[in-house]
Structures are given as structure tokens and as C-alpha cells.
């Protein structure tokens, strides 16, 4: 395959492109979903092709094909050139790329058990044991469990001489118990909602998730929610735990820190960002204990890799340092705008997509609190866990999240369970009210395999390392 890519690169050079790259991607996905004692969906998909990106006349062109025949690849390369020339009809400035070292390298995810070699029977046995356990509680009317495995092989070659081969392996899954009574529906999920938790890892990740061990508790909580009172509407202190903290970071820091959004190139669909360039280095995004890093080197993180889809080596850098905006998620084209170099966030979701600035592992650094101490230190508040709904404005300021479950915290103790909790706020005000973050012991990298962006729409696999954190003066219970 490398030879085919090299031929494309040679052809692009004969076309005198200012820059060109060719990316071969072969994605394999195995997806298993069960409902009760029935297999809801089980499938294996292969998807491969080559995407060719060029700069001609100072503008971008991209064309992709699933046909690997030599004549089709040359046709596709020529189409990319033609498209770039069409782009030049509206050119304002020449596309300039930050200079980089062209790497020749290989990278492979570290994993112990190849998830595609683990027998389907074994996977189904575990999933059915989970749904059986969930259904022991008679209030649970719907027990769903799933696993997903991904293998991405890709080769990237550029006219600058880069040639990088990578193999990324990802595993994950989760389950949901849905309790129904009358017109009331309540769900509890483990370890996270919306298909569970994922990592760059093999089947060993599934084995250590504690899936079966938590099933009884999850079912009982779903059933208990049916009888729980609604979360009260109040302004209070909240402690956010689990995957909800990850989604809070994702929506209110990750997306607004994408430099393409900041520069307006995602405005028509996903929107812009309040984290404008004038705020870099001075704007107080959060309290001094808030540190957020973009880190594609984090071992096991779903956003980890060797190189991004522009050939930039994985790296770690701050976006928020001691509460101040100090960086963005960047690309070779955008980094020079802030007089910086790319921190390697350009990723495409397949051979047929152009790379966009995407989150990798965007992590809230752990603080110093023990979780039990944090609860004990909270006089009056609400504990929120597991995302249910999410919504945020197109500059990422006003957000509203719903969680599956909440508990009252009274005089340092967890008390009454609440259903239908919702909280809302404005991003900087919210993060400036963060006064405690739990320590490394409670820190986990949550993998999200479904981050949408771009036109045509792309779905990225991203992750967020978070631990439970406390926020004061938060408006809760606004759904009424």
C-alpha cells in the first residue's frame, strides 16, 4: 500500500502542488448489542480507501475514493487538484502551513488481548449475564448492553517526505437498565451512558471494567428513581462525578478551544467560540485550581495516537493553566495565527474525510481532594452523576445538562436520591466557581466514541481525564 501512496505523491509532485498528502485508512469495526436475551445487532464492518489532500493556487482541495485501482487513484488525485483550483475562485489569502519535521515512523496501540480474536461467544455470554442481572429487578423493563471494537490501520505520506504507519486498537462498551412504571421512564447506565466507556486498548479493558459487578446496583438505582422525588429547583453547590464531568469538559472547554471554531470556520453548523484570540494569555476561564491539558500521549486514552493526520507527533500542552486560557487545539494551518506550532489535533474519521481540528484526550488535571473528604466538606448541595442530556449555545457559553441521577448532600453526607436532575450555567462563571477537584486516585480517562463535527459530518473518538469536582452557585432543576 505504501507503494501506491508513493505513486500518488510522485504524481502530485508532477502536478506541481504546493503541498500534498495521501492517507490510506482501513477501519474494521465489530459491534455487538443485546437487549434482554435477544441479540439486537451484531455486525462486522470493513471500510477502506484513500484520501488525497492538496494545496494548489494557495487553496485546499480534497478527493477520496474507495477504489484502490491505480487509474482511479490518479483520477482522484487530479480531482483534488481541480477542486483546489475551484476553491481559488474565492481566495483571500494563500494557505500557509507551519513547517514541521517529516517523520518516517510506525506506531501501534499497546494492548494485551486482540479484541477481534476474543470469541464472539465469550462476548455474548458476558453481555447476556449482564442483562440477566439487570432484569432480576422486576421494575427494569429494558436491559441493554453493548460492546464495540475498532481497528484502524493507516498510512500517511506527504510531498514533504513524511511516511507514517499506524495501527490503533480501541475497545469499550456499557449497559443501561430502563425502569418503566406508568408513564415514568428512568434509566441508569454503567460505566457511562450513550454506549459506555472506551479506551485505546484490547479486550483486557472490557475485563477490568467491572461490568457484571455493578449490574445489580445499577438496576436497583433505575428502579429506585421511579419512586424518587424530582430534583428541586434551586441555586446550590454541586459535585459532578463520573462521565458527566467528562462531558462538561468536552462541551464547555474542548469544543470552544478548537482554533478552527475560534477562527470562524465551523460557524455555520457547530458554531463559533467565546474563547476568542484576544483572551489568550489573559482571560480567566476558571478558578486557579482549574488546569486543562490536551494530551494525545496519555496511555490508553481513546484520543491517543502516534501522529495526527497531518503527521504531527503526539504531544501534551496546556489549554487552561491555573484558570487562564493559554492555548488552543491547533493544526498546521491555524497554529501560525497564534504564533505557535501545531499541537497535533488534526484528525479525520476515515479515508473519505478531511482532517479537522478535533479533541484528542482533553483532560482536567486532578486536584488534591479525597472524594470522601469532598462530600464531608459539603454542607448543602447536590451530587450529580452520569450524563442524560446535553445542550450548549453556539459560542459554548450557556449550557444545560441533564444527568441520570442525583443525591442530596446534607451536612457532609449523601442523602435523598433525586430523579430528572438538570443544571445550567454560563461557562466561565461556572468554572470560576470550581473550588475543589479530586485527586489522581479518583481520576479516570473517559472515552467518548461519538463526537460530531464538520460537514460532511465526522465522528471522532475522543477522551477526557477527569475526577469529581465541586462547583458553587449552580442553578439546578430548570426543566420545569
Amino acid at each position, binding site marked *: 500500500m505504501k507503494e501506491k501512496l508513493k505513486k500518488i505523491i510522485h504524481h502530485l509532485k508532477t502536478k506541481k502542488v504546493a503541498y500534498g498528502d495521501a492517507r490510506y485508512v482501513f477501519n474494521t469495526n465489530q459491534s455487538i448489542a443485546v437487549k434482554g436475551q435477544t441479540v439486537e445487532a451484531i455486525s462486522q464492518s470493513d471500510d477502506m480507501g484513500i484520501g488525497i489532500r492538496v494545496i494548489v493556487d494557495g487553496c485546499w482541495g480534497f478527493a477520496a475514493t474507495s477504489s484502490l485501482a491505480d487509474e482511479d487513484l490518479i483520477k482522484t488525485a487530479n480531482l483534488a487538484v481541480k477542486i483546489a483550483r475551484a476553491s481559488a475562485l474565492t481566495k483571500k489569502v494563500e494557505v500557509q502551513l507551519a513547517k514541521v519535521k517529516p517523520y518516517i515512523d510506525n506506531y501501534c496501540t499497546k494492548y494485551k488481548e486482540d479484541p477481534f480474536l476474543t470469541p464472539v461467544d465469550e462476548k455474548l455470554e458476558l453481555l447476556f449475564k449482564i442483562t440477566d442481572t439487570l432484569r432480576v429487578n422486576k421494575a427494569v423493563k429494558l436491559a441493554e448492553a453493548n460492546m464495540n471494537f475498532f481497528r484502524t490501520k493507516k498510512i500517511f505520506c506527504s510531498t514533504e517526505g513524511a511516511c507514517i504507519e499506524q495501527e490503533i486498537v480501541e475497545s469499550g462498551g456499557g449497559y443501561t437498565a430502563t425502569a418503566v412504571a406508568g408513564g415514568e421512564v428512568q434509566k441508569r447506565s454503567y460505566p457511562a451512558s450513550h454506549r459506555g466507556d472506551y479506551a485505546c486498548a484490547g479486550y483486557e479493558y472490557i475485563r477490568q471494567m467491572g461490568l457484571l459487578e455493578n449490574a445489580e446496583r445499577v438496576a436497583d438505582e433505575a428502579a429506585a428513581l421511579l419512586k424518587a422525588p424530582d430534583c428541586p429547583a434551586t441555586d446550590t453547590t454541586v459535585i459532578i462525578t463520573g462521565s458527566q464531568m467528562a462531558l462538561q469538559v468536552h462541551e464547555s472547554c474542548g469544543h470552544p478551544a478548537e482554533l478552527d471554531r475560534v477562527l470562524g470556520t465551523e460557524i*455555520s453548523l457547530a458554531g463559533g467560540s467565546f474563547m476568542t484570540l484576544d483572551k489568550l494569555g489573559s482571560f480567566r476561564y476558571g478558578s486557579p485550581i482549574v488546569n486543562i491539558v490536551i494530551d494525545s500521549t496519555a496511555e490508553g486514552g481513546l484520543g491517543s495516537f502516534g501522529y495526527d493526520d497531518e503527521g504531527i507527533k503526539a504531544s501534551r500542552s496546556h489549554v487552561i493553566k491555573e484558570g487562564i486560557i493559554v492555548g488552543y487545539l491547533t493544526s498546521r494551518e491555524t497554529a501560525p495565527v497564534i504564533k505557535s506550532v501545531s499541537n497535533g489535533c488534526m484528525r479525520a474519521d476515515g479515508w473519505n474525510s478531511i482532517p479537522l481540528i478535533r479533541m484528542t484526550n482533553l483532560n482536567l488535571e486532578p486536584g488534591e481532594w479525597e472524594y470522601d473528604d469532598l462530600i464531608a466538606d459539603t454542607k448543602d448541595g447536590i451530587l450529580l452523576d452520569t450524563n442524560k442530556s446535553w445542550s450548549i449555545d453556539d459560542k459554548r457559553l450557556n449550557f444545560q445538562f441533564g444527568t441520570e441521577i442525583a443525591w442530596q448532600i446534607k451536612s457532609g453526607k449523601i442523602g435523598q436520591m433525586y430523579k430528572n436532575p438538570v443544571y445550567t450555567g454560563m461557562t466561565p462563571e461556572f468554572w470560576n466557581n470550581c473550588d475543589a477537584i479530586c485527586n489522581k486516585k479518583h481520576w479516570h480517562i473517559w472515552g467518548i466514541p461519538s463526537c460530531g463535527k464538520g460537514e460532511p459530518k465526522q465522528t471522532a473518538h475522543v477522551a477526557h481525564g477527569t475526577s469529581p469536582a465541586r462547583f458553587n452557585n449552580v442553578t439546578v432543576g430548570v426543566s420545569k
Partner: protein
Amino acid sequence: MIGESRIFSTLRSIIQKSEADQTEAIFIGSYSGLTRYANSYIHQNVAESNATIFFRTVIDGRVGVATTNSFKRNDLLRTLNNSLMIVKHQPPNPDFKGFPRPCKYKKVKTFFEPTVAYTPRQRAEVVRKICREADKFKLTVAGAFSTSSSELAVINSNGVAAYQPLTTAGINLVAMSDNSSGFASGLSRRVVKIPFESITKTAIQKCLDSRNPVDLEPGKYDVILEPEAIAEIMNWLTYIGFGAKPFLEKTSFLSRNIGKKVMGTQISIYDDGADSSGLAAPFDFEGVAKKKVYIVKKGIANSPVYDSLYAAKGKTRSTGHALMPGSGEGPMAGNIFIAPGKKSKASLIAGVKDGILVTRFHYINGLLNTPKALMTGMTRDGTFKIKNGKIVGAVKNLRFTESITKAFSRVGGVSKETRLVANWWDDFGCCSSPTIMIKRFNFSGKTEF
């Protein structure tokens, strides 16, 4: 384009090799181009040629799915075998009653050569005109303009053989000033039918009219929801409520309510994949003809949509709303129509004493409480104050949190004009919507712009 005869002959020859009791193959070919612009220049410009082939096999009620995007014979055979391997490792699905049998579906013209022949340069020329028009008003523009052709073919060992070529063209456009924005969009199977000039004018005028927006306190306001705003709500209703999966699982607002009044009598929502005034696609991904299904008729909950699996579970017949195999999402309504009313949009606005006009919603989420269809979302790209029947200026964007069934029970009027809006189903669906006036719509929050 590979074409009907080559697709059928190739897939038939593969199916004949299958050891399964029943075998199905689905071919989705896609040849698309998309020109994306922002800050009044083209910054992304892409083309893709792809074909995905699904094999679904059944042995003793056990179902396996495997997918490839290679049309080479060896890869197709390997994928068929992958599907059979999956089948062998799972228990029977008692709800699965077999693949559909052949049926007649309405012949609808969905393929138009000028859309296929549209070049990247032609798309760029349209964008250039839009940019130049915006320049005249010192505005910038952003959006995307796509043209595509696709082929959908479904073939199974029961004799189903359905083929439909499709073309689609769509544009969206945001015009922006320092403190305002305006949105407009267009969608058609025929690129020549998209009124680029009027779309540009609408977005620019909305942007100019929404300059210097003022703060408005959240609360209950009468609202005029334009088609783009309604279509976004319909996307979520489709997902959480219109399909047989949430219906039978009792998480839909339709569950327990069939035959009961769930919305105002002015609201009728139906799905019609054979209506060429929308983006028609006359059969589903199992090759079953799409039936016209009233989901809500004059405010009364009528029926969800079904595929063959959920039809068996619900002891009824498929309505032709299967998705691609392996999705696990159940059947979906993709060709949504909301019946128009008798009033003009202008008269709806004239009837509002103190209210808000919403051009478009952003980032709606409908998972808050699905049996109540409780949703939240933000306004964007043109939110206006209406006073005594007239638009008097722009307001900063607001967050709504509302039960959509309750909101649609307080309808003050439905416009006779409708517009096609793109939805989540790309080439295979859309939403045709009027403008709707709703009384006392609940805005629960606000933002800074």
C-alpha cells in the same frame, strides 16, 4: 455510478453462494462533492466516491450482518462469510420472522442529470456570488453547498430486487455582522431548483435585521417557529418518539397514547417517502415500499413507523421504514411532512401581540424526559421580538426547555407556506414544514449574544 444491472448481477451471484437460509444484500453508492465556506472564502472543498455493501444472513432465526466498501468479488464473498460466521455464534432471535417478500413500490423520479454533472467550479461560482453579495453589505458569509448522486439497491433471496438512483443538492448559509447573524437554506433533488439568490437575500436581510440585539428575560412568550426551527425539533421527535422501537419500549410519547389527543388539532405529522415534493426515497433498506404513515393526525396519536423486525414484535406489518442493518436503532421516519395550515406566515406574525420569532434552533437535546418529549435548545441566527404584530428588533439568543407535545397543544396557527429542510437522513429524507405559532413557549435561559 455502477448501475442497476451490474449491481444486481454481481450481488445475485454472491447471494447464490450463500449457505444461509436467507440472504440479503444492500448496496449504497455515494458520489458527492461539498464546498464549505467561511469568512467569505472557500476553506474546505471535498469529493468522495464510495460504495458500501451490507450482507445480512439468517440461519435458524439467527441474524448476522457484515459490511464492506469493496465491490470486488473476493471481498464480497469474504464479507458474506463474515456474516455467516457471526450468525453461527449467536442464539436465535425469536422476533425475527424472515426477510420481506417482493412488493410494488411507487416509481418516483429522484435522479436528475444536471445535479450529477454539477462541477466543483460551478459550486465555487455560486459561493463567489454569495460572498460578493454579502460584501455589498459589509457582511461575511459561511456555509456549505453540496451536490451528490447515490444509488440504493436491495436484493434478497426471497426475490426482492429494488433499485433507486438519487441526486441531492443542498446549501446552508449564515450571513454575519459584528453582532448579528442570519440563516437560510435550500434543498432539492434538482440543483437547478435551488433559489440561490433568494436564499442569499434572506440570510443577509435576517443578519441586517438582527443587528444590535437586546437582552430579553426568559419566560413564556408566544413564538413563531420558522421551518428550520421546526425541522430540528422533528429530528429529535423522529429519534425519541416516531419509531416502533421507543413505542414498544414505552419510552415514546406515542406509547399508551394511540387514539388519544397528544397535540393541537391543527397539527398533523406524517411520513411519506414516495412524495416527490420532499426528498422521495420510495423503499426502505429492506426493499419494502414506504407507506404514508400519519404519526399524529389532527392532534391524535396515530401510529409509529415499523420495519419488518419491529412489525413482528408489534404484530403488525412493516411500513417501510427500516434503517441500514446493524444500526440497532430500529425503524425511523425520515420523510417528515407537517400538514400546512390556512394562514399566511405574515398573518401569523400579525396575530402576535408580544412574542418572539425563531429562525433556527441550535443543539436541541430531546433526552430529558422522552415520554413527555421534553427538550431543550438554543435559538440562533435570527431571533426577533414581535410587538403588536410587527417585528420590532432583535433579541439575544434564548434557551427553551419545553415538552413538545404540550407546546404543540398550544398552537395558535400554522402557515400555508411550507419549506423543505435537510434533516439527519442526508440523501434519504428531509422535513417539509410550515411556520407554526405556539402560545406561551417556555424560554428557561439566555446567553450573551
